[in-house]
């Protein structure tokens, strides 16, 4: 692994390795390779008329903003109750962790682990992972670039599963609706949790993975 990384790093110094260096851009929509030498950084795809950029504009800023949003929202999402159970007139609130603990106590370890993963670990992992990548870009950490890219792919992939908890609550709300006897409804944390998931997913979309590799290009060359 290390060798291959080094290969790339070595290659970088010898000539135009990246499209950017070669003055090429790719259209985000029709994937046509467009030369950027004749144009500004932002130009029009001659084929599909979409705006073409070398890199996604403002990717780092957007991703930072969204990641920070989700980081802030992560706290109320986990600390406030996500579900309200009315059982024979008595209200009960439960946070995400309460539910997980309940399942573990009940012996349903499988469900417990699934919910723990989808609702707690995945968002935390996503936020932590994207922040790690962003930090590495910011501080031009040139190590583990390939692993970071793989991690990002993984984050993109699991992002869709983190809505599991919301699905469970939505289903329960509909299924358990017996008026006075038993009612389940979503509580405030559900909103924040949705915010966390949405902003992490958006963060993953706005992030341009090529930026990871841009760190390999020495700043002097980039400025040339």
């Amino acid at each position: 692994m290390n060798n291959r990384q080094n290969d790339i790093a070595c290659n970088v110094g010898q000539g135009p390795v990246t499209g950017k260096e070669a003055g090429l851009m790719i259209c985000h929509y029709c994937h046509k390779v467009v030369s950027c030498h004749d144009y500004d950084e932002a130009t029009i795809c001659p084929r599909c008329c979409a705006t073409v950029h070398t890199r996604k504009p403002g990717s780092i800023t957007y991703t930072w903003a969204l990641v920070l949003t989700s980081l802030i929202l992560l706290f109320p999402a986990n600390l406030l109750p996500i579900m309200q159970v009315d059982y024979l007139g008595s209200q009960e609130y439960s946070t995400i962790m309460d539910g997980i603990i309940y399942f573990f106590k009940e012996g349903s370890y499988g469900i417990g682990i699934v919910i723990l993963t989808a609702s707690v670990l995945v968002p935390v992992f996503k936020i932590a992972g994207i922040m790690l990548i962003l930090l590495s870009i910011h501080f031009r950490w040139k190590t583990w670039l390939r692993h970071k890219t793989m991690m990002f792919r993984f984050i993109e992939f699991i992002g869709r599963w983190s809505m599991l908890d919301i699905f469970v609550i939505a289903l329960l709300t509909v299924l358990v609706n017996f008026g006075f006897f038993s009612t389940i409804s979503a509580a405030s944390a559900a909103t924040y949790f949705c915010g966390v998931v949405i902003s992490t997913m958006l963060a993953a979309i706005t992030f341009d993975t090529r930026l990871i590799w841009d760190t390999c290009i020495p700043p002097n060359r980039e400025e040339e």
Partner: protein
Amino acid sequence: MEKPVTKKKKGISPIWILPAIALAIGLWLLYRGITERPITVVVHFHSAEGITAGKTKVMYKGLPIGFVKEINVDKGLDSVSVVLAMSPKTKEGLVQDVKFWIVRPEITAGRISGLETLLSGSYIAVQPGISKVPCREFYGLDEPPPVPETAPGLHFKLKTDALNSIQRGSYIYYRDIKVGSVQDYTMEGSEGIIINAYIEPEYRHLVKPGSRFWNASGITLSGGLSGIKFHMESISTLINGGISFYTPEVLMDEPPAEDGHVFKLYKDYEAAEYGIKVTLKMETGEDMVEDLTKVIYRGLEVGRIKKITLNRNDRKYKVTAHLLLDPMAKPILKKGTRFWIIRPKVGVNGIQNLGALVSGPYITFVPGEGEPCYEFVIQGSHSKEILKNGTFYRLESTDLNSLEPGAPILFKHIQVGEVASYDLNPDNSVDLVFIIYDRYVRLMNRHCVFWNYSGMNLRVTPAEVNLKTDSIRAILAGGIAFDYPHQLYGKRLKPAKPGQRFKLFKNFQEAVKHAPGLKPAGKFVKLETTQPVSVSEGSPVYYKKVKVGEVTGVSLEEKHDKIIVTVFLEKKYLALIHKTTRFYLASGIKVKGSIRTGLDIQASPLASIMMGAISFINPGHKKSGQRIKTGQVFRLYNSLDDALAADYVAVTIHFPKGQKIKVNSKIRHQGIEIGHVQDIGFENHMDSILVKALIKKSASSIFTTGAKIWVVYPEFSLSGIRNLETAITGPYIAVEAGPGPRCTDLQGLAAPPAVPVVKTGLNLIAEAQSLGSLKRGCPVYYRRIKVGTVTGYELAPDARMVWVHLNIYDAFAPLVRTNTRFWNASGIRVDAGLFSGIDVKTETIEAILAGGIAFATPEGEDMGRAVSQGHHFKLYEKAKDEWLEWEPAIALKK
């Protein structure tokens, strides 16, 4: 190589709004989390039963204000400390004397409480305190605390001897509305109990210092013969115990009771009654019932006897009744007020105080003058308050009889006055004062004659005086009646002077002797009888139970050994009396009957039961114009039956021995009743029975010489049951007219005539070798259809044959021709031979069982002529086969 243009964007990207919003939300949530951080409070309970950490709530007035965070056992293991997370809003309220207790569902015989916790689980209830010292550690109570002294509302005390079923939390009701509750109770000394009670602020004004509280628990049942009083408060008080109170109307304007006021708790509703206490000394407590005997003033209930006590020292008035009078009676209670007891009086002068008869005796009073007074002595009841205005007159009588003050003075049965009082004159005659009401004073003139109208005359036989019990006296209302001669009606007469003295006659008869003009117009007739009579002077004469006159004298005419009863008949009824009128004695109750005829009870009007009475009937057609003369003599029959029987013709029938005839057995002709047996006796030699019968005049022509008379009994035989009705009604006597002249002395037959005459249909005679199984009533068949019956049989006059009498029904008479063949169809005929096999011939089942006769008529010319009554045929033993094939066409009668 052209350098790409790098554009630097200025300013901050709008995307940063997102984290800013998130941060704002986060900060706001944080702020709220800090400010609304629950206040942790520790409460020590004896038991944390029913409490769950994290779930159990702290409720105040139905709202959750906190929850149980955790539960720990205290060091000494004797209590638990419950950590409560209280809403920050309660911060100010968490002071030293805040009380916590656990509300659990509680179902005991005494009460059901906290029922809502069955579903929602137990909760911790809070009662706020008044202290200002904040506190975070409390000691929980085992049961709900009483309402604090400072709570708005009325806090007062009730004093009682026994707690009964009152308990902490028992409700206090006002007109069955829950207005407060029992907070606590303590023993005061060794006897009294002090109950701390609380009335909610909105009902506070209802409690006045004069309010009466009583224990409303359970059922109160009191009473005696004169009534039962049942009192029950609501069911919940029955279970839970409760206190009710009420405030007398008169006290409603007084200021409300102060906090800490001590009331007496009465043991029940009755005991709590409010009123003026009055004592009334009386000679005897007879008929007086505590709590039930009322004090009534002019028809209004103004109080009751609450208690009756014995006086040890008072020799005359041994009993003291404690009355509780309505406060409105207060102004009446003066020294001169007189009390007396009204008892139901059932007397000759009517039923007095009927109300008291139903509700028991009561006490009444007349207001008097003088100082206010609360102790009275009962007065005798010999005087009566006259409530109407009128003029007073006097009566002189030799005897008071049963007259009492209040006895009515009647004119034509209308009460026009009443007896006010009586006294004894110096000459030992009775002086009665009576009042005639104003509107009737015009009736009073000097011609007025008064007599004692005590229901029934007292002049009846000694045995009947004994019968004169109270109840009969009650039925026959009495009093004094008066009248003046009828000729003077409508004339202007000189009115009597007030206070004028009249003479009181013992009865109407006496009065009539004195003033004959009183008597209504009418006629005297004489009734004579040889039998002793049970009527006497004054006995009524009824017609259809309406009195039309009366007996004025009974005398014995020695010469003819007759009793002559003189009867006076009122003029308006004279039209009812004719020369044919039959008078009879209608006294008393008559019961006649037997199992067969049923029971017949005749009860005459009560007066006639006691005094005997005469009644009459008018048989036959009325013949107007045949007016009776005064002094006309009638026969007096002994009874209605005798009077009716005067129409009947007496017939004597001689029966051989052994007939089951009884008196009243019916006599019938062709099934219709024409008379009955009046008497049965033996003939001179005891060998035959002499039946005396009464026959209706219209039917007497049947009784002629040669008439056939026999007794009909029920008959049971294989061919059926005959005369079934006689099994129930008893045998009757049947009569067939004979050919001779009329006669009243006849000979009865021992058995029904062998050949009864049947007037309808065709009567034939079949001559048989022997009777076989034939009987009277056996059917006669034609093609197995019953067309007639065997009516009888007899030996031929020369005894060679048996003559079987047949009666063919009218409709089928044409079937019989001179050549008709009759054969005996009884039984089963079996012809069996070695080669012919078995041939079984039967007629109908009835014929098999009971025997019968069948006949067939040849076809066409061979059938012969129609037959006349009494034609003789030969009765064959069996039918020839060819007979059975005849199929003549004969028109039947329609």
